[in-house]
């Protein structure tokens, strides 16, 4: 059900764009004002969210350590899974953000044997790198597609984007030549989607908020692909619009661009406006996760907790000895006060 609702929602967005920019002729709205609004919502929302997180302190250092801590110099220190310095922590974070280190570690549980085998039933673990692979395909192709789009906003087009395109199209499939990143993005999103449909446990935990962004991104990618390979949108007209977007120039005359362009732009606008309010904020959150972005150095250095309550104190030794003094003396344990001294204090 959650998946269906999400699919309908994305269809509805497509229809809105088709009707709005096509039939109703609101090209200016869909081509300029909605994207501007979406970017503003994204920027404000993103900043507000990160500030919101940053406002809550990190009272304690709680890194999840994934290897040997720094200890004796003759014991090999696992620097990047159990960092002791800021530099090592930086490398740990880079491995996490760029290579999805934790997902690479993934293992899957498997059960062998039947219940009748009693204690000899086996629970084993197997390497499980599918999720890591799917996620890597998805995120990196998305990144390349994103960077490739800069050519539409920049004039002249920087040489690294030209180079990127050369790499992307080296297979020379079709006319215009197929961008591999576009195909990979559709593939990645589809694999992640299939995983949600086909693995019962993952389906059980999936919400509309998990399907919706995947469908939305698929919609963005497919509309882009249709525009490039089938609808053959006038690329110069598109660039005129995007340059106008980028230079905040509302005077541009948007005509003859084709409805599919507005569908694409509208879906992108929805995606970027939706991002700060959704789980897609993991993009920013991963940098703020206290189990990953802190060195494991709290025994070596003192860290202050801003809300530490000095009124929380141990049950005092004095109260302890007052309760047990007689028995302690009898057992031959040292005490601070003899029975006479204690009696005198009490009398006062």
């Amino acid at each position, binding site marked *: 059900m959650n998946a269906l609702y999400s699919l309908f929602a994305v269809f509805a967005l497509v229809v809105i764009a088709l009707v709005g920019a096509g039939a109703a002729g609101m090209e200016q709205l869909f081509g300029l004002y909605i994207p501007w609004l979406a970017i503003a919502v994204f920027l404000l929302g993103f900043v507000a969210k990160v500030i919101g997180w940053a406002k809550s302190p990190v009272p304690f250092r*709680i890194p*999840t350590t994934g*290897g040997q801590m720094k200890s004796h110099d003759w014991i090999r220190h696992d620097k990047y899974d159990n960092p002791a310095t800021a530099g090592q922590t930086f490398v740990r974070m880079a491995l996490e953000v760029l290579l999805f280190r934790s997902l690479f570690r*993934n293992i899957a549980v498997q059960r062998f044997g039947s219940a009748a085998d009693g204690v000899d039933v086996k*629970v084993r673990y197997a390497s499980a790198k599918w999720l890591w692979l799917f996620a890597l395909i998805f995120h990196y192709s998305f990144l390349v597609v994103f960077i490739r789009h800069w050519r539409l906003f920049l004039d002249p087009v920087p040489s690294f984007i030209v180079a990127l395109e050369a790499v992307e199209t080296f297979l020379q499939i079709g006319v215009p030549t197929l961008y591999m990143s576009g195909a990979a993005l559709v593939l990645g999103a589809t694999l992640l989607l299939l995983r949600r449909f086909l693995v019962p446990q993952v389906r059980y935990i999936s919400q509309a908020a998990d399907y919706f962004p995947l469908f939305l991104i698929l919609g963005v990618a497919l509309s882009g692909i249709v525009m490039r390979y089938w609808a053959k949108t006038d690329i110069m007209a598109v660039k005129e619009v995007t340059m106008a977007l980028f230079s905040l120039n509302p005077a541009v005359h948007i005509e003859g661009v084709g409805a599919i362009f507005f569908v694409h732009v509208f879906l992108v606008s929805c995606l970027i406006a939706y991002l700060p309010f959704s789980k897609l904020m993991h993009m920013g959150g991963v940098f703020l*996760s206290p189990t990953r972005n802190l060195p494991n150095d709290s*025994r070596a250095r*003192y860290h202050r907790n801003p809300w530490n309550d000095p009124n929380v*104190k141990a049950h005092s030794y004095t109260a302890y000895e007052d309760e047990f003094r007689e028995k302690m003396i009898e057992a031959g344990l040292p005490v601070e006060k003899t029975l006479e001294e204690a009696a005198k204090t009490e009398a006062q």
Partner: protein
Amino acid sequence: MAWNVKPEELLQYDYKVPQKNWMDVPPEFKPGTWCYPAKAEILEYLNKATKGDFPHIREWVPTDADWKLPEDWRERIKKGFRERLDKYRSFKVFMDVCVRCGACADKCHFYIGGGDPKNMPVLRAELLRSIYRGEFTLAGKILGRLAGARKLEEDVIKEWFLYFYQCTECRRCSLFCPYGIDTAEITMMARELLHLVGCNINWILEPASNSNRTGNHMGIQPHAYYGMMEFMCDDIEEITGVKVNCPVNEKGHEVLFITPSGDIFADPGTYTYMGYLMLFHEIGLDYTWSTYASEGGNFGLFTSDRMMKKLNAKMYAEAKRLGVKYIIGGECGHMWRVLNQYMDTMNGPADFLETPVSPITGTRFDNAAGTSMIHITEFTSDLMKHGKLKLDPSRNDDKIVTFHDSCNPARAMGLLDEPRYVIQNVCNNFVEMPEDTIREKTFCCSGGSGLNTDEFMEMRMRGGIGRGNALRHVQQKNGVNTLATICAIDRATLPPLARYWAPGVEVYGVHELVANALVMTGEKPREVDLRQEPLPGME
């Protein structure tokens, strides 16, 4: 509670998920899956000691329909939730960034051994997140269930109580999460919220209360504690012919030694305790024990940050009173989580102490410069590296040993190689369990975070399947008969686990193995080990 379900019956589960949405599956309180609520007199004492941290004391049972929650329970939960979001960035970020990828799902020992989907860490966290969305986010307020939000009903509290007391805060899921979402943090917050409406369990609060009053979680009074130590010294003399010293509550020594009190009264922990006494005597360490700070294990960690701080504060208070230079801590799991990640921040800076320096080897422990507290296996491995101990590992030749990493030293600290080094110096036969079950990927004993009680035995045995299977594997393949560990809760929970899943394997503390192999000055020819069983060749 009598519990005698056979393994083949316990294994009648699968990983199927219900057809219904999880929000429509009500919590079910089956025997063996929940712990008894805290006794009223315990709560009354704690409430007095903390000036009101344990409100709404009443008699109640989780199987009752009416939990007699306070009238304003919703407001209490909402206010408490908001306060904790503002206090902990971890909590706030973890409420927002989960993408429900499911990488954590089959990492939880309770899910692996029970198949209840609400024990998938992602879903356990959703129990809180659904309320967070409903109460604190705009999307959740408008879209409701479509945004994964739900209303705060009494069943939610019941569900929290059931599942957040089916989490041992072992952090195995956190290791695999791409954002490092730590279910232990979430469980800690949920338990704090439950305290606000008077829902808590006795097996945590009675030890916390005892630790506060008598210094140790068993409630042993100082004279009795000292009596038990003297009794152990007599045993050591009988076995080795050496009369060891046992300084207690004495001022003016260099080192204060603190270990979990579970080890003083129950086997097999007692042998580890004897091991410390023998080692320190042999090297002539200038040290003292304390009855006031006789508990390393901190049941406050499973209660609230305030209780944790309060119990932990004793260590520095006692170190200051006795005038020691630094502290050595014994073999304990969650004690080391508190010491490594919280202690200095809560109760420091420990500027009245010094950076630990081993008086025997001169090694300076710069990794503990702030806290001034080192782990016993850091200390002992250093002695061994410098050849300061005379050891006869053949005395442990009847043992084929494997090592169980305890969750907290492994995943909150990274203490992995020191205990292995110590074991390998005192045992000739050491084998590792399969790699996905050790070191940072280690499995919980399923009794951590205050759940090592007998009424919870079914869940303990279910959760124990991961460790049990790995142990059974090396037992069959390598003839392993000894499971060494550095945690007192392990020493309490692993013996029944081993009897159930890998019968024939005995549980040992690392320093019991050290003491067996330790050749002491002036000792008589040893015929028996610390358990008074004949040494190899003496049968």
